[in-house]
């Protein structure tokens, strides 16, 4: 896995390769099963979980339906508290803004808190082109960065690596980025964490610029919230002189009180803890404590396009807990890289095609990267009906139709490669509109049932490779109903 998402193959091809990697599957199985049971226990401690979940969804819906109002309120509050607010319509604009802000400080190195938004826009690569080195300080991000790898999980980007692989990466790579790994480093997680502590401490103590995302932005007070475990977030948020936070516009919540919902939902869904070790909140700048300069870069990059879709909009409720990844049977087997973006798993399968559009091969394949089993919806702390959005996006891929892309309303053409599906659906639609033809067809199918092949011929062959064809009964339901209860010769009559 090289460190770029460019030219990623469609999900089925990437997944086919990943599922043959038995070590990857073992690593994923171990990690996802560990966290699954813990999460269930943490959630069971709160007997009002369903009500919290409903409130979590409702607060986000309120915010999204009035996002312009809350963004302006947020901007005013942040500015009043001494921060500077920038707006970026897309990834390039966000990268240009951050690069300029770092250049203005005269620094060529920055420390970073783990942030999905900066992964999404490829900030590290953009900074590197400008001669600025970005150091990832989250342990898993460090593992990914040192291994020239890509993240494969929202919470634990290095979930695809087991402890001995991590030890090997640390031994091999740490020296070229700063302090080398300690002599005789073992693969015990405690020793690996200690090695990361020593390696990064030097960077924290000298860093002048920190870059972060945020989990929440409170519109009424202008407060940003970062939820973390290791303390690297606190280091980056408090020690540098300049702090730049790049945050998706959908991270807004209206009020301080709203945090009472999410600070209960997020830790239990994410790391299965009652509360994560560290949560930092800050409002603009504080005299004599922490950064003297604070920039907030508000990022669109496909979010308003997603907002324009009344079915797909609910994906913007996501608080990036990763519970849906941990329960997903497809993610557990295919791993995160197959999803071709920083957002893997079920939530990635609905976020990526909406942020980037469904025109690309990878993006068009993602809505199909699911068995629609619904486990993701069940665990989602903000009740995103992921299967509903997946089916909606499948329809968009197959049928095309009106969408908003980069703020412009346009009409998508149906995707190629779904001709057989469309033809079958059209035929089914016609048959259901013509009851007599449907009855004749069903009777014919019933009479010839012993002659039916076990597998489909032609293009349907691949489909029946992994599925049983449904058996046709000797008598259709409608015939049975008529024979046993029916009083009229015609179906649908109201006698």
């Amino acid at each position: 896995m090289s460190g770029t998402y460019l030219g990623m193959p469609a999900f089925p091809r990437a997944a086919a390769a990943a599922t043959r990697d038995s070590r990857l599957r073992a690593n994923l199985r171990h990690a996802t099963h560990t966290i699954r049971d813990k999460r269930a226990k943490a959630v069971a401690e709160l007997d009002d979980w369903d009500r919290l979940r409903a409130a979590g969804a409702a607060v986000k819906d309120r915010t999204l339906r009035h996002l312009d109002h809350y963004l302006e309120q947020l901007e005013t509050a942040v500015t009043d508290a001494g921060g500077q607010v920038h707006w970026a319509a897309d990834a390039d604009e966000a990268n240009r803004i951050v690069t300029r802000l770092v250049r203005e400080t005269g620094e060529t190195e920055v420390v970073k808190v783990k942030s999905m938004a900066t992964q999404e826009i490829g900030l590290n690569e953009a900074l590197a082109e400008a001669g600025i080195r970005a150091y990832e300080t989250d342990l898993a991000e460090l593992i990914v960065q040192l291994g020239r790898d890509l993240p494969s999980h929202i919470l634990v980007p290095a979930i695809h690596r087991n402890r001995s692989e991590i030890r090997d990466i640390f031994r091999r790579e740490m020296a070229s980025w700063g302090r080398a790994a300690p002599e005789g480093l073992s693969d015990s997680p405690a020793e690996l964490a200690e090695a990361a502590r020593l390696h990064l401490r030097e960077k924290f103590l000298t860093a002048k610029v920190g870059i972060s995302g945020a989990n929440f932005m409170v519109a009424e007070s202008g407060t940003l919230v970062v939820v973390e475990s290791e303390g690297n977030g606190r280091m980056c948020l408090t020690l540098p002189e300049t702090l730049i936070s790049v945050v998706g516009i959908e991270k807004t919540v209206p009020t301080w009180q709203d945090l009472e919902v999410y600070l209960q939902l997020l830790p239990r869904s994410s790391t299965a803890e009652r509360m994560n070790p560290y949560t930092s909140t800050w409002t603009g700048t504080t005299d004599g404590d922490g950064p003297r300069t604070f920039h907030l870069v508000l990022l669109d990059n496909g979010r308003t396009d997603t907002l324009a879709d009344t079915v797909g909009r609910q994906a913007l409720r996501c608080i990036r807990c990763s519970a849906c990844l941990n329960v997903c049977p497809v993610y557990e087997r295919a791993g995160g890289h197959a999803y071709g973006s920083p957002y893997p798993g079920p939530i990635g399968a609905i976020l990526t095609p909406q942020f980037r559009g469904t025109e690309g091969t990878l993006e068009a394949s993602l809505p199909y990267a699911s068995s629609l089993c619904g486990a993701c919806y069940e665990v989602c702390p903000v009740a995103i009906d992921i299967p509903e959005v997946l089916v909606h996006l499948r329809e968009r891929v197959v049928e095309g139709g009106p969408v908003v892309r980069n703020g412009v309303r346009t009409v998508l053409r149906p995707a190629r490669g779904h001709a057989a599906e469309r033809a079958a659906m059209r035929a089914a639609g016609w048959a259901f509109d013509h009851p007599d033809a449907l009855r004749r067809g069903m009777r014919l199918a019933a009479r010839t049932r012993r002659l039916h092949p076990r597998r489909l011929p032609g293009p349907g062959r691949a489909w029946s490779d992994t599925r049983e064809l449904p058996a046709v009964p000797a008598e259709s339901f409608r015939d049975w109903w008529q024979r046993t209860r029916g009083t009229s010769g015609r179906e649908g009559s109201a006698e």
Partner: protein
Amino acid sequence: MSGRDVVLARVRRALADVPRGEGPEDWPVERDYRRVHGARTTAQTVELLAENLADYRAIVHRCAADGLPALIRRLLAERGAETVVVPPGLDPAWLAAADVTLVPDRAAQTARELDAVDSVVTGCAVAIAETGTLVLDGGPDQGRRRITLVPDHHLCVVRVPGQVVGSVPQALPRLAPDRPLTWISGPSATSDIELDRVEGVHGPRTLEVILLTE
């Protein structure tokens, strides 16, 4: 058009389905979840705090006001701490018995200077029982955020029951959003290796909490 105008215009176009007359507050949010989970006496709430702190590997001690200086002295001595950073408003009596060099929390202090300090002693703003969380708000007995971050040993005094609340919903109204807050639940930890929790990464690896009976 500025980036701001572009993004806000896109948001407004995207929300064409929202009825014109609908205000933000018109969209219903039911807050029928619990303010606190379970009925507890004050003593039981303090007990739960102690349990949950310990569950996340904080070391919990209890004492009354007259025993505090001796307890702090003992805990610092057991750590072998020679230097201790203290916020400006910390009660001087707390450290009066300790045989250590006090390092005041100053604006001019560099992170590297702090890195050489053994321990930090602070109070807190609020403690949350259900989650085992201490909240620091930069008050006079808590100091700048970095002093509880860079040293490897944090000794935090919680006045019980006055500073203890049951739940997160009870904690937020007692905290001011315009102050920089640090919520601490156990020592620094990570789940990044095989989703298994390991204590001790960048923040203080040892968190000791003294429940001070008022």
